[in-house]
Structures are given as C-alpha cells and as structure tokens.
C-alpha cells in the first residue's frame, strides 16, 4: 500500500533530514513510527502524501508514484486521510461543514449525501450533538476526533497520523486513542507517528524507530517490545519514555 524506498531529503545542502529511509506499510497494517524529536519522523510521514517534497528516492502509494511530476497530487491526497498534531480544523466553518467541504468540492458529492455521511461519522466519534458548533467551541480532544472524522469522510484507503495526541491535555488523550484503536481493529491501514507506546503495544503490527533522519529499527511489535531492541539508541529512547 505504502512503499518508501531510499528517501533522502535535505533542508539545505548541509542539513539532511531524511537519510536513505526505506520501509513499507501493507494493506491493513498498523505501523507506529517513534523516535526523539527532530528525528525526522513527522517529515517522513508528510512525504508520504507529498506535503513535504523530497529530493532522492521514491514513494509509491497504492501503485502511484508520489514524486512523479505527472501525478495528480490533489487526487492522490484525497484518497489518503491525514490527521495533524494541531488538528487544523477550519475555524470559520461549522463542524459539519468541516466534514462536508472536501466531500463536495473534491469528490463531487451532493450536499445532502455529504452531510449524511458527515453526521454518521460524527456519531461514530461521539460528537453528533456538536455538529452545528464552530471548532473553537470544542475541547482539543473533541477537535481531534472531528479531524479524524473529517479524514474518514473521504473514504480513505489509508490514514496518516502525525503526532495526533501531542498537543492534547493528558485527560483527553485516551478519547482520541480509543477512536484510533477502533479504526485499527476495523482493518484500516495506518501509519502513526506517536510517542504513545501503550497504543503501539495494543494495536501496532510493526514499530519503526527513527533517529537523526535514519530508520534505525524496523521490527515486529513483539520483537520491539518483547525482545530487546537491537540498537543502543532505540533502547535508550525506550528506557527514557517507559520509565514513568
């Protein structure tokens, strides 16, 4: 489903953010990407739907080469859902309209159809009664659930999560993770950048550990948590975040 092959990215000639990253996500798989801040994990996931350009290598998404100039990027992106650290709901639109806009403008759905779909998804994330509100009236956790529903409204073939819980107050993290766990168990293909090791342990198939722009570890979940991770850097990272 997602194939990342030898991806290199430089911010400037002297600063390389991604170094020869190669990995893949197959259909129905849940892959968690972790690593210290600045390790390039957010950059990598943003390369998957070409929100970030990269200079070397290639990424193939459902058979389509992302970094081919001939690729219709808007069309490709519309098939992959993305959830951001800071939610990025559209503050000038009501919740329900946040869910309808791209359905209508990109997929060409009729307003009634889009709205019905939106309401169904809002019900699923438990926010149906907030449909007429504006994003600023909702808590962070609620906004992030709306953002997930907004991405799902496009019927994506895969979902990308870029640190979906990092900007949330601790008591709101679980409500977002619950939605993500459900999604994973339903068989959604997911690539998730997160520090939530509990989530990784629960639903991930594989865990990727990145450091300084490199994929240091790419292992089955059981190997990553159960056995000892092979690299020193991954061990150090894990001991730091699992300590508390």
């Amino acid at each position, binding site marked *: 489903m997602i194939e990342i092959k030898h991806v290199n990215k430089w911010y400037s000639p002297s600063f390389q953010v991604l170094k020869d990253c190669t990995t893949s996500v197959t259909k129905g798989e849940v892959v968690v990407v972790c690593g210290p801040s600045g390790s390039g994990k957010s950059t990598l996931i943003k390369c998957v*739907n070409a*929100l970030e350009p990269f200079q070397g290598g290639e990424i193939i998404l459902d058979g389509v080469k992302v970094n081919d100039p001939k690729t219709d*990027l*808007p*069309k490709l*992106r*519309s*098939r*992959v*859902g*993305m959830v*951001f650290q*800071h939610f*990025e*709901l*559209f*503050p*000038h639109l009501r919740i329900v309209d946040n869910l309808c*806009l*791209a359905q209508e*403008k*990109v*997929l060409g759905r009729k307003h009634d159809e889009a709205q019905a779909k939106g309401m169904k998804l809002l019900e699923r994330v438990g926010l149906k009664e907030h449909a007429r509100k504006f994003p*600023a009236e909702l808590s962070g956790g609620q906004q992030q659930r709306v953002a997930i529903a*907004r*991405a799902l409204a*496009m019927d994506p073939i895969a979902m990308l999560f870029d640190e979906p819980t990092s900007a949330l107050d601790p008591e709101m993290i679980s409500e977002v993770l619950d939605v993500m766990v459900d999604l994973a168990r339903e068989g959604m293909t997911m690539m998730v950048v997160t520090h939530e090791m509990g989530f990784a342990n629960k639903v991930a198939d594989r865990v990727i550990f990145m450091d300084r722009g490199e994929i240091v570890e790419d292992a089955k979940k059981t190997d990553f948590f159960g056995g000892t991770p092979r690299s020193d850097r991954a061990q150090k990272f894990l001991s730091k975040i699992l300590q508390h």
Partner: protein
Amino acid sequence: MLGSFDFDVIRRALPYLFLEGMRFTLTLTALAAFGGLVFGTLIALMRLSGYKWLGRIAGVYVDFMRSLPLVLVIFWFYFLVPYIGQWLTGASRPITVGAFASSLITFIMFEAAYFSEIMRAGIQSISKGQPAAASALGLTYAQSMRYIVLPQAFRNMLPVLLTQTIVLFQDTSLVYVLSIPDFLGAASKVAQRDGRLVEMYLFAAVVYFTISCVASFFVRRLQARIAIVR
C-alpha cells in the same frame, strides 16, 4: 461675526449636495473599494505565489503606486487613458473615457496597491497548517485559497480593510481636479455660485467628519466582536 453668515444656503443646496454629490462619492467609494479588494487580493496572491517573476512584478507595481501622490495619478490617468486606449485598440483618435470611468479605474489601481498589502498580511497570518490540511484533503491550490485561506484572511483583516475604505472615502474628494461634482465638488460649486465659501466648506468638513467618525466607531465595535470570536 456669525451673523453675517447665511446658513440657509446650505439648506437650499441639500438635495443637490446629497442626491448628486454624496451619491457620486459613495458610489465611487464602494466600487473602488470592491475593485481594489479584488485586484489587491490578486496582487497579494502573486506576491506570495513563490514564482519569482510574478512576485517581483507585483512588488514593483505596489511600490510604484505607493510612491506617487494620488492626486497626480488621477490627473495623469485622466489625460493618458484616452491615448493608451487609442494605442491598445488601434483607433485613429484618442478614445473618450468619461471622468467617472477614469477616476474609478485610477482609484481601483491605487487602492489595489494598499489593499494588497493588507491582504498579504492577512494571508500570512493564517498558519501553514491550514493550507496543509486543505491539501491533505485533496483540495487544489485554488480551492484551498478560495474556501480556506482567503475567507479567514479576509475576516481577520476586515477592520483594517474598512479603515482603509474610510480613508478612501475621504480621498475620493481629490476627483475635484477633474471638475467632477462629487460631494466636495458639489459643495464647492454652490459655494462659488452663491459666494458662500466659508459656510459651504465648513458644512462639507462637518459632513466628512461625521460620516468618518461614525464609520470608525462601527469598525471599532466590529473589531471587538471579531476579537472575541477568535
């Protein structure tokens, strides 16, 4: 001293002053503000487009317009447009452009330079995550601008845009150089006809002052309301 003033001249001239003069002033203000906003937004988009040459052309235009006195632009434009039109259409003689059309085009061009800077600031005030989220949903650049970025930029900048429009309302009085009967032009005509310069110019000042003040008051109230919503 006030006894020698004849304020009745104002009362008699009221229909002419407002139905013709003020109507012209308000029409010109509204059309120039609208046109200036449309072209200003396009110029702002050019400057932010990332295409070096497009941005440079827009930048030169804005700098050029902002470095010239408005009254000079109005004056020159009025005399130049017929010849530019002749050159463009290949007509044998200078085309006739009415004073209204000429002044409207001038104001739109001039205001576009100012509105573009306001809209540029407005667009830059939107966090990069917003267009990124729009792109991630599959919206094209044009759709993302139209449905996500520009509505927010416009709303954030509305108080500044309206304040600029109040300045524009006052600036439209400069069309007097073309002898157009806008509000000030109408007042000045009556003043000279009846020899009541002090009364008429005093009255004109009071009217401009009152309208601008009231408008500014509403802009401030609007600003406070928007500040709460955000």
